[in-house]
């Protein structure tokens, strides 16, 4: 196990949204704070800092992860994708439209986290994998929508993409 002295700064190289970032950071720095404060990627939101609300969800090697429960130094050579990375995908326009047309968001604070999880689950669904949408959505707290619009957006996207399960 690596031990670090208090106040010691350590070098890290993180791959975020296809770019490599080199920084000297405190070992205790949360990945969520690293993304927001060191890289200025403020689309990753912090709502609870104990892994319940899901607002800080990012993709780590393609799988959804709470960035508030992970240390930035613990990322290693894993690939991180934040909401800012997803937006660059060609398919994101259709995704954004489905969310907007179905009023799947109000204040928008939980939204980037929800989008990251739903995006990943839809990919799985389109790979013919069975997706339990209750399971996916229950990882996110939304106080605005009652989840109604989010489910409708998922259904609209599945109708388009030929996914296998119902939201």
């Amino acid at each position, binding site marked *: 196990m690596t031990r670090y002295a208090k*106040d010691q700064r350590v070098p890290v190289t993180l791959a975020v949204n296809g770019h490599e970032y080199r920084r000297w950071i*405190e070992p*205790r*720095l949360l990945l969520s704070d690293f993304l*927001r404060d060191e890289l200025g*990627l*403020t*689309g*990753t*939101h*912090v*709502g*609870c*800092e*104990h892994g*319940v*609300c899901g*607002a800080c969800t990012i993709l780590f090697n393609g799988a959804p992860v709470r960035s508030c429960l992970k240390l930035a130094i613990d990322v290693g050579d894993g690939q991180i994708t*934040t*909401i*800012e990375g997803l*937006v660059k995908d060609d398919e994101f326009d259709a*995704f*954004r439209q489905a*969310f*907007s*047309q179905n*009023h799947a*968001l*109000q*204040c*928008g*604070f*939980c*939204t*980037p986290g929800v*989008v990251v999880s739903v995006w990943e689950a839809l990919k799985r669904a389109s790979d013919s994998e069975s997706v339990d*949408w*209750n399971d996916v*959505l*229950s990882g*996110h*707290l*939304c*106080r*605005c*929508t*009652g*989840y*109604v*619009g*989010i*489910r409708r957006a998922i259904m609209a996207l599945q109708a388009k993409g030929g996914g296998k399960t119902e939201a």
Partner: protein
Amino acid sequence: MSLLGQSIPRFEDGRLINGQGQFIADLMPVPGIKHVAILRSPHAHARIRRIDTSRLGTVPGVTGVITGRDLLAVLAPFPVGVPQPVTYYPMAIDRVRYVGEPVVVVAADSRYAAEDALDVVEVDYDPLPVVSDIETACQMPPVALHENAPDNVANHREFTYGDPKTALNHADVLIQERFVYPRNTAVPIETYGVVAYYERSSGDYTVWANFHGPFTLHSVMAHALKVSTQKLRIKTPQDIGGSYGVKSAVYPYMVLLAATSRLLGCPVKWIEDRLEHMKASSSASARISYVTAGFSRDGRFQALHIKQYDDVGAYIRAPEPATLYRVHGNLTGAYDVRHVHLENYAVMTNRVPTGLVRGYGGPQLYFPLERIMDIAARRLKMDPAALRRANVIQPDQFPYRTASGGIYDSGDYPSVLNTALQASGYEAFREKARNLQDSGPVRLGIGIAVVVEPSGSNMGYVTIAYTPEERARQLPKSGAVSAATVAIDALGGITVQIDSAPEGQGHETVVRQIVADVLTVPMASIRVIAEMDTAITPWTISSGSYSSRFAAAGANAVFSAAQKVKTKLLALAAQQLGVDCKTLRFEEGRVWGAQGATDLTVKRLAGLTHWNPSDLPAGISPGVYETSYFSLPNVDPPTTEDLINSSATYGFLVDVAKVAVNTETGKITVLDYVTVHDAGRLLNPLLADGQIHGGVAFGLGSALYEELRYDEEGQLLTGSLMDYLVPTASEMPESLTVLHHHTTAPGTPLGAKGLGEGNVMSAGAAIANAVSDALGVEICSLPLSPRTVTESVMKKEGRG
């Protein structure tokens, strides 16, 4: 075709879905900001014996430290609207009165460093007796929280309308019950956040915060900071991550950070963490209600007697005791009851001070009132729907003046009730539920709640906390005003500034719909600025997002400002064309006359006022920048008889909930939920339904899961989101139906009423009625945890 009334997706969505929203945590609006962490009281009640900050020098990155006594140099206590206010500062001075109360503020280079610094601050406390139970607090107080309130009562008032004593004496059936509404809270996913900057040379404060009003609190903050109001400039970020009322209570922290900036000589930023939010932000008032209702044998609701005790927490804090009065005009709900007695107590306890939470005062009233209707129906051997039908105000009674002074502007309550009963298959389900009795542990039940939903609060209603004699010595307060500006620049670009400080309601979109309709221009040619800046935004004390006021007040202010622009441009066109203004109209962004289209467009006319003001005729000023202050009608100050129309307009809703209750595990499943609203004209049905979906989820949470629970020492037991449960997607009803009626609001140009809070007022009652129906018990407290259910079952079976 009118854009208003159409389900138009939101302009706000793009930036928010892309993660490009700008929330308070994302902002560093001035250079040199230091980050604040707050040391908080671990005790619910204690004297502070000693605060030792001497070791802070050993912690790297620390800028400075503030304790409560330091604040005395720059702050005055917060004012509050009760006859005998208690002394309340944003940080404890010598004595703490709730767990989580700020005790020490440290500023440092980073939040991490500031939190490190808190570790070396030592505070010694002498614990004092804790006041927790509401009734004990005021009837047998173990200790007084404040010297000038020996019985811990911050406000007490008694009201009599009609002759309730006689009416209750003559009633055939009296229903008497005690109800408990718990402390719960809003839990926006974004917590509080503040940036404050004091500029020494001018003595001006600028405070950025996810604060959304009411902007009456601007004057409260300025008073606390001991500055004249222009010296306190409040700015809100472009986006606020939900509030549901609770962020109105960020204001003590705005003052705390402003004072910190002044005392430490640097701008400071504080983003609340989740534990801080659950412990020490704000919450809804818990309430104990004693209700006596008198009915005739044939089910006529004749008189109502309510005694209510609100737990307002450790300090009565503005705008409290408003929870007790926000629904004062609609105390009798949807029913035609002329004899009412009301007694109100605002009681202080060792809990976090209370404030706005979606529904504000509504769930505390309607949970008892709508439970009483079901209890009465059972006693009278009537169907609960039939009892309600027999007592609701009839369409020909509008405008209806309630016993307490409310003026219900419009409605068709029987029709909405019928729609709801039909949509839910009420009769068939009751039959099915009866047949299922005694066949296994699962019982079915159905419950109704009928709610008159107030919107557009009268700023005068809070003054009813004073007696008429006390009010006579003050200047009167009234009104429900909103302001908006529509401006057109030299090349025809349209910008609208609004004063509602929204947090997800979609005002930027609805404003485009309104202005595009009036000026017949595309929505894309309009930009809406929703962030507030008290130095440059037209605003007034009632500005902000609360009391579901945008549809009734804000939207009409925008409409009115757009009309002013239209009038000005048409007057200019008439002069240019040499015709009577009345013959002209706008169509497709162009002026049309009797002969058809002219070459005068909105862009050309606005341009003329900028580029060539020399040619403007008399009476037409340069530029296009029209501000309108719109005031809703019928919102007068309270009368000497204590009559108050507490809201400008009143919508209506009926909820019908079907539940399955497992009598062995206590699990409640909401099988089906029907909610039928009448909010007048819907400005954007897509957004209206979104508000209702969210309201149902919110109400469901308060009915089944949500409670800020404390132990006897006043320690919060539900400080994390693993302990304080809010509904996830899996907890939503298996089926949710939203339907609408459209009885327009007669007093307003657009005819819309608010609708975002109604289901929070109704769901607790509807679900409790359904569970009571399923189990054959009378549920009198919320939330309906599995334990509450199994205890009710055991009590009924004589095992409790």
